[in-house]
Structure formats: C-alpha cells, structure tokens
C-alpha cells in the first residue's frame, strides 16, 4: 500500500478488513507525519503512547469480530475543545492550562468506543472564537496550501488545526465544532469536506461551551463518504445533553447514490454580495451547473433577512459566551492569578480572567455582558432573538416551497495571509457571512471542495439542507464532489 496516512476512512476501513494493513501501521504512519509537521502548528498535544495502545486494541477487535464498527482502527485528530479523559483539554486558552478532565466528551467517547484512534489534540482559536486560528494560546495553525511563492496562510478557524491536519495527511479525519462557520470555513480554506449537522444531532456534553444554542460538533474529512461514515459515528441521542435529539441516525453512507434527479436546489440572491471576488462567483455558478447536469432543478430563491444574520449572531453568540465563560473564575480548574497581599476574591476573579483570556475572548465576553445588562437586554438581546426567528422563517418558507437544499459559496474569499493587521474586529467577523445563517437556523450545512482560485488555492461551496436530513444533504454533496472532481493536494513544504 502507498502512504497509509493519505488514505480515506473508507479505504482504510476496507484495507483493515482485507488484512492489507493494521491499525498500528496506520497509526504509526500518522504519528510519523505529525512529528515531521511541527511547522504547521496543527497538533497542540501529541498522544502517541495512547494512540498506539488504542491501535493495538483496535487490531485485536478487528481480528476477533468481523463486524467491528467502521471507525475501528481509524486514526483521527480531536479538536482541543473536546474534553478527553486524562489528556490536556484547554480550548486553546491559557485559562485552562494544565486542565486534564476526568471524563470524556460524549462525541469523542463515541468515536473511542467505536475503536477510532486519537493521535492528538488539535489547535484552534481560543474558545472557538475566531476565523483564522490566530487567537490560540498555542500560536497559529498554518495552512498546508500556499500561493506560488507566497506567505503563510491561515487554515481558517476556529477548527484551523483540524483542517490543517486533515489536509496535510497528519490523520485520516478530525473532529471540529461549528458555532458560526468554524467547521465549514476552514474546510473550504484547506480543500477538505466539513459537515455541520443539524443542531441537536451531536451531543454537546463534554465539549467546552462557547454559545450553547449555536454550537454543534461535526466531522472534517477528505471526502463526502468519509463525512457520512464519521458523522454517523459522532451523532446520536445523549441523555446528558437536554438539547440532544432523540432520533435514530440513519446509515448515511448507504444513502450516497449520487442520484439527485428532480431535487430542487435553491440559489439565494442575497448571498451575491457586492465586491464578491470573480473566482467565487464563477465557482458558485459552475457548482449550480454541475448539479443541474446531474438532473437537479436550479431555482432562484430569496432569503430576505440574510443581511441581518451577522449582526444578530454578534449579539447572541457573545451573550451566551459571557454566561458560559463565567465558570472560569480560578476556583475549580485551570489558571489562577498570583494575588497581591490584601487581594480578596473579586481581585482573584478579575486578575485570573484578565491573565487567562486572550483579547478576542475578553472582547466577546464584555460585549455579551453589555448586551445582557439592565436597560439593553430588550434593545439588543431580545431584538436579536426576534431577528433569529425571522432568519429561520426564511429557510422554513424556502423548504416549504419545495427547495431540497441551498447552494452558496462557503467563504467570501480563499485563505488569507496570517498576521494581517486587523484594526477593526468586525472585518474578521465577515468571514462567516455565508455560514452563520445556518447556525442561527439550526440547519445542517456542508462545505465541499469544488475548485481553485487564480493562485491555486482551494475554494469550497456550501450546501444547506433541511433539518435532520443530513442523508439527503450528503448525497447532494456527493454528487457535487463527483462532478467537481477536486483531487489537488498541497505541495509539501513543511
């Protein structure tokens, strides 16, 4: 076999069953790739001993029973936002330095129980707040893709380490989380597939909370088939998360027929932004043409409240974050500031949080505090929740009119250079303009690599589906993937 770390999940699964390779061999190939890729900054905590131990157990399981789960023996990376038992889990924040949970998040636990092999914890934006992986206490994660002779590029964020690791073949797949686009935007920037499931599909238990009504975990993979396999392994009801849906998870892989004849694909006119790069506009119309050629009906639709999605998001997400992050007080876990003589408990809170949180996290916690404070609650928070209802209604109406899925660009640009001077925080927020509506409406969305820009950088298109219909969404994505035939890989420089 060729380089084992470059296999897809489906290829590795089949090879394991044919006895052509072992989980240990797959894992060793990934560990070697990880050790030679420190320049990418993708892996924040390496777990080689644990990985080999789990790989050996997976091999035993594969030999003992033929019906081992599909993920058995598959090396995966886990975003640092997931609590993993006995392994550092610090959400890329200084305030959780040294934190080793005594428990395993439901989603990483499901993967572990299925026999998947965690090779390390992956870099991300601090508390998942960012779109470039530049707010991490570990330093930047870097995109394996580069423009010709160009500077280091962002892999996107917040799941930047996950995207970089999967694109650079450091693991076969990775977990991500998506609050406003944090799976789909980095997937698009690195030429991989990223699925954000319907809100409630994946349990949030044990995932460090950012904005609880928006957060959702999902798979980041090389192919749509892999997203179907890994996604199904991550989903399912969990009594420990009250918003987890008690619904059966279908066999998504079995639904990948590629037959989308008669499906109605909506093209929302509000997503055609002023100043959209030519390459993005062309990618979008090419993608629509591909789906049309596959037998789908392309229909122009309107989602009139789209322009209010980002402002609503930047009320709701910080408001929820300010509540969720109140727990970081220097008492129960993580960092506590050194105190001066005479300092009381208030000084302990204030110094601990000032030292432990990075600038973007502080900004969002304080904005959240402001919009929830007496006198502003109605003007900001309640108003944003009303706008959120309208944004969801736009989608509900489109689906009621017969639209099966909606096609948009994933991002307004290709990956941009790291270290750009950003004086206005709002400029960075605009990265999420096409993805954030999906979180506000609780819908499933997937980014599929479809083409490259003039500099050879990957570009993705997003498909948005009806709630709970990830199977149909994945099948449409599968048809798009097949038609686009994106196979390019970044040239190795690291």
């Amino acid at each position: 076999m060729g380089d084992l770390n470059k296999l897809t999940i489906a290829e590795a699964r089949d090879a394991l069953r044919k006895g052509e390779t072992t989980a240990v061999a797959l894992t060793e190939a990934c560990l070697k790739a990880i050790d030679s890729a420190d320049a990418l900054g993708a892996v924040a905590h390496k777990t080689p001993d644990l990985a080999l131990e789990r790989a050996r157990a997976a091999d035993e399981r594969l030999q003992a029973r033929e019906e081992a789960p599909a993920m058995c023996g598959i090396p995966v990376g886990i975003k640092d936002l997931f609590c993993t038992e006995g392994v550092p889990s610090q959400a890329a924040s200084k305030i959780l330095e040294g934190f080793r949970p005594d428990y395993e998040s439901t989603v990483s636990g499901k993967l572990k129980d299925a026999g998947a092999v965690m090779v390390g914890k992956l870099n991300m934006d601090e508390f998942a707040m960012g779109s470039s992986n530049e707010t991490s206490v570990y330093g930047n994660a870097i995109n394996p893709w580069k423009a010709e002779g160009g500077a280091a590029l962002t892999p996107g964020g917040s799941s930047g380490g996950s995207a970089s690791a999967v694109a650079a073949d450091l693991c076969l797949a990775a977990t991500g989380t998506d609050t406003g686009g944090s799976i789909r935007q980095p997937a698009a920037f690195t030429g991989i597939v990223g699925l954000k499931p319907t809100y409630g599909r994946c349990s949030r238990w044990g995932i460090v909370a950012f904005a609880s009504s928006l957060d959702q975990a999902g798979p980041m993979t090389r192919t749509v088939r892999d997203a179907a396999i890994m996604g199904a392994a991550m989903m399912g009801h969990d009594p420990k998360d009250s918003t987890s849906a008690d619904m059966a998870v279908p066999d998504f892989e079995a639904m990948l027929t590629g037959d989308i004849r008669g499906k109605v694909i909506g093209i929302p006119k509000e997503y055609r932004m002023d100043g959209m790069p030519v390459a993005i506009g062309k990618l979008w119309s090419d993608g629509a043409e591909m789906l049309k050629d596959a037998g789908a009906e392309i229909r122009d639709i309107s989602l009139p409240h789209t322009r209010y999605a980002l402002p609503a998001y930047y009320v709701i997400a910080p408001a929820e974050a300010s509540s969720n992050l109140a727990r970081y007080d220097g008492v129960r876990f993580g960092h506590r500031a050194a105190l001066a003589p005479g300092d009381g408990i208030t000084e302990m809170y204030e110094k601990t949080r000032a030292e432990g949180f990075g600038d973007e996290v502080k900004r969002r916690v304080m904005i959240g505090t402001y919009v929830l404070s007496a006198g502003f609650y109605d003007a900001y928070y309640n108003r944003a929740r009303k706008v959120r209802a309208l944004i969801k209604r736009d989608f509900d109406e489109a689906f009621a009119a017969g639209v099966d899925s909606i096609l948009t660009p994933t991002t307004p640009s290709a990956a941009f250079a790291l270290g750009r001077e950003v004086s206005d925080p709002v400029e960075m927020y605009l990265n999420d303009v096409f993805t954030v509506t999906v979180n506000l409406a609780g819908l499933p969305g997937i980014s599929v690599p479809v083409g490259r820009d003039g500099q050879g950088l990957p570009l993705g298109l997003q498909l948005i589906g009806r709630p709970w219909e990830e199977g149909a969404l994945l099948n449409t994505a599968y048809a798009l993937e097949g038609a686009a035939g994106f196979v390019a890989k970044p040239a190795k420089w690291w």
Partner: protein
Amino acid sequence: MSIDIETAARVAKLARIKVEDEDLPVLAGEFNAILGFIEQLQQLDIDDVDPMTSVTPMRLKRRADVVTDGNQQAKVLANAPDAREGFFAVPKVVE
C-alpha cells in the same frame, strides 16, 4: 449608542475582567465598532415577532428525580488550583 470610557470600565467590572485605565480608550473604541455593526438590527420592524427560544421545537425530556452520580470528591477537586482538606480554597470572602 456610543460607549464612553466610564461605560467600558463598568462593563469590564461586570464581566470581572481587570482592564488597566490606559487600555480603556482602545477598548471603548472596539466596543463602538462592534455595536455600530450590531446597530443594523434596529432597522427591522419586528414588534409582532416572538423571540426565538429554541431553534428546534422540542420538549425537554423528563427523568426520575433520583441521584445518578456523586461520591467523587477527589475527581472533582483534582483540577483545582488550590484544594485543601476536601474543599476548594479561595481568598477570605467574609470579613
């Protein structure tokens, strides 16, 4: 709506994040940029819209009111910056 230095200081206090006086003007400027962006929400007429409470209509599940967990004092305290005699230790709270 414009945030002055005094308001920025008050918000920092409410959020229990220490901000040095010399950093307050920049912070107030950033708040104003973000709030200016959020201000677009005021353009919509939404008086007759109910605020969203749950993105997917679902009833919270019920379960029997019984103890399902506990007796893990050591695990609960394992990550504490300062734990003594089975308790979290903090600076003196009551004078």
